[in-house]
């Protein structure tokens, strides 16, 4: 390869790019760009006609500016002019500008089309290639109108060069994707099919892409492609690895073409016996090759080989007709489940999911259940765990349902917030579908609410009510179980909803037991009443009126509740109306009328499980299909098809029941709490990690980003990382004066710039869970000179050693000018601590030793675990912590504007849960959490009372450990 004469044509462009890269700030960059834009504008408007070269240069600069993310609103015309230039490079830049910047609906399309027409007619293959590329890039309808008729002719003409054929095939494919109606089928189609026989593998590859897409919509027209594709594939898989020359990729013959041919075959059912035998041979060969020892250790070799293998397995599953191949595929995937490459494990889980729905391979898939459960527990990548959960769902049947459901429930306790709702839906569906006895089903759903109440959507708890209502064998058990579940001091609001509804309907079934007598049931429910949202309180009011019918002895108590001012004059119109109507109903109606109106709800009519519908909405069509068709478990529909449609159950609720607002599916109220709460938690834990940039980002940092820099500077993209150097231990100086102030910035947040001076910038990114934390420190060299002997170390002053364990990874001893190095710290909190560890950074800069000591932003509150609790629990605990030394209080002036939202965010960042509806004064903030250390846990309650008038705060902390109260109080007081 000759040395490239880089940018020789356009020195002005290179100068401009350098200028931009040298800009120290965003403002400077914008200023430079505006100057350039003004210059280009004046050149374009000037009287002097620009020559083609200048036009090209300026158009290229505009393109560069656009790619930096700025809007470009002129220059299009000049770019279009370039298209008709006779000089290749000018034409090429013109086309590049058009294909990057012009979207489908540009007014210029007609002018562009003209230029394209000329180039297509030019018979110059290079110009034709440019024109076809432009059509494929813009791909607008107007272009399709102009060229869809022309391109097939170019494609099948006898004298078209191979490279033009390739471009024409893909260009036509693009037009067909955007405007299928404009691409006419005709004589050319049979000639395109025969391109599968072409000598040139590049032509075959491009043609196969085109044929696959066309065949999906017009299978009849292209069915001759099947036998051609099979024989082509057969020739490839049996070829020696050198036969195909440059189309062999890391010893794998034509992997791209093989994948495409296998894809094409998936547009059709299994072929006729003659062809079928040959295809089966091909597939067997591919499966056999997977067992052969690799021909190369490079990952590219195994990736290419396995790409073909996975596509072959997809075809085997698509045909779903060869039990032998299906089982072999399953065994092969089983091997991959334990492969050390994460990518293969991921793909194997995904592919097995589809295998699980085939009757031939379902049993074979099931044998891997332990491996999959293990993957769910141990995979470090959430996307892999999610595939494992999908596969468990797909392989579930009556025989393993209990095991799978219990594993998924266990997983739910630690599952990532992003996928909790989906897991909840899946568990709910499996529990219903495979329930042998419904007490197991009820237990499972109540467990779901207990473990992940926030993620249990309305559909799930509506469904449990529908099922309990329709099956009288489970009603008594359900009433008993919810009654027990409600005993928990802090139970989720969804539990209160389910409990309220079920006791209102079936509380009588457990009323005989003195431990759950009517007054006990009522007072248990009513103890939750004040903590609940309006919707739940409305539901509870309906339960109460049902109690009056079920248990006449509770009438007086309940009437008193309804009569209370807080109900009759409730600000919420729904609550007020219910209170008024129920009170009147209970007073005026006779017992008989009351009994009729408040009769037990009739069974619900059969309908599709609302949960399944929701899962489908979430995952798109096809989700849950494995369970829908029930083909491998035909009996299941009889027993567990949800709610059976017997004549007696198809009645609709009586109008009177409607009046009372006890309809099965209340109209969708407020969006489920899960959405909001979920996001909040995701933000707290995951948000920071997603911030793209920390520390300085000069371009040169590329050369030595996360990998330690190699001694020779420009690190090639394909190079291997070099080993790291060893820093030596040293004594350290006292922290810099502003260390405390810097530390304070990180009390309520985990990411940001910790320190910056003329030479060095230190960025921090960290996350904490339980008593563990991981911190990434980014050291950026702001100078253009290499730092020598660079050594950051973490030091534990005093007896911090016994309180906090910090493990550091080494960093390279040299930091190139403009480069950034990263250091990872693993942190474990052993017991409570007051002083943060110190970070000492030493290096030589231009011969001068530099030393710097900072406080590492690790404070005790990082190990907070937020705790949700109800008001009464809070106050009970608050009282328990009433010893004077357990409390710390500070009254202080606001240093920042007093904004409730900001305060909330800070308190959440501090780590405690924020408890609503606890403090009688809504202006105040109340929080609770547990500090997790290895040795002990410290429960913490806090209360922050802002006084906007005086611009003051009062902060009170109560914890079970005296120094912790004081320390937290001091840390937090600095933040407002």
């Amino acid at each position: 390869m000759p040395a490239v004469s880089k940018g020789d044509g356009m020195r002005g462009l290179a100068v401009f790019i350098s200028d931009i890269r040298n800009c120290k700030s965003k403002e400077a960059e914008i200023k430079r760009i505006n100057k350039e834009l003004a210059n280009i504008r004046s050149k374009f408007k000037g009287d002097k006609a620009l020559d083609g070269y200048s036009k090209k240069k300026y158009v290229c600069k505009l393109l560069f500016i656009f790619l930096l993310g700025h809007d470009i609103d002129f220059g299009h015309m000049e770019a279009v002019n370039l298209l008709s230039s006779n000089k290749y490079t000018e034409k090429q830049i013109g086309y590049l500008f058009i294909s990057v910047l012009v979207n489908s609906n540009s007014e210029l399309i007609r002018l562009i089309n003209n230029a394209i027409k000329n180039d297509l007619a030019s018979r110059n293959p290079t110009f034709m290639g440019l024109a076809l590329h432009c059509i494929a890039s813009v791909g607008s309808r107007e272009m399709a109108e102009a060229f869809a008729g022309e391109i097939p002719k170019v494609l099948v003409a006898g004298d078209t060069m191979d490279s033009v054929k390739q471009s024409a095939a893909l260009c036509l494919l693009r037009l067909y994707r955007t405007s299928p109606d404009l691409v006419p089928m005709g004589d050319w189609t049979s000639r395109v099919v025969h391109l599968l026989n072409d000598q040139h593998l590049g032509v075959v590859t491009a043609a196969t892409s085109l044929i696959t897409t066309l065949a999906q919509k017009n299978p009849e027209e292209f069915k001759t492609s099947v036998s051609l594709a099979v024989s082509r594939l057969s020739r490839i898989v049996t070829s020696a690895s050198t036969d195909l020359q440059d189309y062999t990729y890391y010893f794998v013959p034509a992997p791209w073409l093989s994948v495409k041919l296998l894809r094409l075959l998936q547009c059709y059912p299994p072929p006729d016996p003659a062809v079928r035998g040959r295809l089966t041979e091909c597939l067997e060969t591919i499966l056999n090759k997977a067992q052969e020892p690799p021909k190369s250790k490079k990952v590219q070799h195994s990736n290419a080989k396995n790409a073909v293998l996975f596509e072959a397995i997809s075809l085997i599953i698509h045909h779903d007709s060869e039990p032998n191949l299906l089982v072999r595929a399953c065994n092969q995937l089983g091997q991959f489940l334990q492969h050390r490459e994460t990518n293969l494990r991921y793909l194997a889980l995904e592919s097995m999911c589809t295998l699980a729905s085939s009757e031939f391979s379902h049993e074979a898939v099931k044998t891997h259940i332990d491996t999959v459960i293990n993957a769910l527990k141990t995979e470090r990548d959430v996307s892999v765990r999610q595939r494992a959960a999908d596969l468990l769902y797909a392989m579930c049947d009556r025989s393993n349902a209990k095991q799978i459901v219990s594993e998924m429930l266990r997983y739910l306790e630690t599952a990532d917030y992003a996928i909790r709702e989906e897991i909840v839906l899946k568990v709910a569906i499996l529990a219903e579908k495979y329930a042998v006895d419904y007490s197991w089903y009820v237990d499972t759903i109540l467990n779901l609410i207990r473990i992940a109440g926030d993620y249990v959507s309305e559909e799930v708890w509506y469904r449990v009510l529908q099922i309990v209502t329709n099956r009288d064998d489970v009603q008594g058990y359900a009433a008993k179980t919810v009654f027990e579940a409600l005993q928990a001091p802090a139970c989720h609001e969804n539990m209160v909803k389910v409990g309220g509804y079920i006791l209102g309907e079936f509380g009588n079934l457990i009323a005989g037991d003195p431990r759950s007598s009517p007054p006990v049931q009522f007072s248990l429910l009513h103890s939750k009443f004040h903590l609940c949202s309006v919707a739940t309180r409305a539901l509870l009011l309906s339960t109460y009126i049902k109690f009056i019918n079920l248990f006449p002895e509770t009438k007086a108590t309940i009437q008193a509740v309804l009569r209370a001012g807080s109900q009759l004059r409730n600000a919420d119109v729904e609550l007020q109306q219910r209170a008024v109507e129920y009170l009147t109903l209970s007073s005026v109606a006779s017992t008989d009328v009351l009994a009729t109106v408040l009769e037990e709800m009739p069974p619900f009519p059969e309908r599709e499980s609302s949960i399944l519908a929701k899962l489908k909405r979430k995952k798109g069509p096809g989700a849950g299909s494995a369970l829908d068709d029930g083909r491998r478990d035909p009996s299941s529909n009889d027993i567990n098809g949800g709610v059976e449609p017997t004549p007696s159950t198809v009645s609709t609720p009586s109008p009177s029941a409607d009046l009372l607002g006890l309809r099965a599916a209340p109209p969708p109220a407020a969006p489920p709490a899960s959405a909001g709460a979920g996001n909040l938690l995701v933000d707290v834990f995951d948000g920071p990690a997603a911030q793209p940039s920390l520390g300085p980002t000069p371009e040169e940092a590329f050369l030595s980003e996360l990998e330690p820099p190699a001694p020779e500077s420009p690190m090639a993209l394909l190079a291997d990382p070099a080993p790291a150097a060893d820093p030596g231990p040293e004594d350290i100086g006292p922290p810099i004066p502003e260390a405390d102030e810097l530390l304070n910035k990180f009390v309520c947040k985990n990411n940001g710039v910790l320190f910056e001076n003329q030479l060095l910038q230190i960025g921090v990114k960290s996350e904490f869970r339980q008593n563990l934390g991981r911190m990434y420190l980014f050291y950026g060299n702001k100078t253009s000179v290499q730092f020598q002997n660079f050594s950051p170390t973490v030091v534990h002053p005093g007896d911090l050693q016994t309180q906090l364990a910090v493990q550091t990874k080494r960093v390279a001893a040299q930091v190139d000018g403009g480069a950034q190095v990263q250091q990872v710290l693993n942190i474990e909190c052993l017991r409570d601590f007051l002083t943060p560890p110190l970070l000492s950074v030493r290096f030589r800069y231009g011969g001068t030793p530099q030393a710097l000591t900072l406080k590492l932003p690790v404070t005790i509150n990082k190990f907070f675990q937020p705790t949700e609790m109800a008001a009464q629990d809070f106050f009970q605990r608050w009282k328990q912590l009433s010893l004077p030394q357990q409390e710390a209080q500070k009254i202080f002036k606001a240093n920042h504007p007093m904004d409730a939202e900001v305060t909330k965010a800070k308190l959440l960042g501090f780590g405690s849960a924020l408890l609503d509806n606890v403090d009688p004064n809504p202006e105040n903030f109340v929080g609770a959490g547990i500090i997790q250390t290895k040795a002990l846990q410290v429960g913490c309650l806090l209360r922050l009372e802002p006084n906007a008038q005086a611009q003051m705060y009062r902060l009170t902390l109560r914890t079970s450990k005296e120094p912790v109260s004081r320390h937290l109080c001091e840390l937090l007081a600095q933040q407002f």
Partner: protein
Amino acid sequence: MSLGNIRQGKLRLQKWYLATSDKERKKMVRELMQVVLARKPKMCSFLEWRDLKVVYKRYASLYFCCAIEGQDNELITLELIHRYVELLDKYFGSVCELDIIFNFEKAYFILDEFLMGGDVQDTSKKSVLKAIEQADLLQEEDESPRSVLEEMGLA
């Protein structure tokens, strides 16, 4: 399908194969960058994103990302990325990010020779590089040397 180079929040190259508005493109790029940069080493190279699958691989400080559709083959896409990097490497001779910054138009030309409309046009390294070389030859014939003053717009 789109392909871009992402480096600590800076996009070096992007190519879209579906009509998308500028605003939507920017939003997608931002979102995708966040998702990909948050990934840790050793995680798998595929992730579900919107209704697409993203296949990405990191080379030094550049992330190469492809968004593909549900049915598309992930592993072959991973190798598609690798082949493109090989092409860049061969053309520039041990390619680094600076080459791509200063010669972005070349990086585009190479990509265009390799992929078209989101599908691979030719997988042979030789064919693609031959096409680019020919174009370079045309470029040299085209251009006569220019003086520095002319270059700066002063002549």
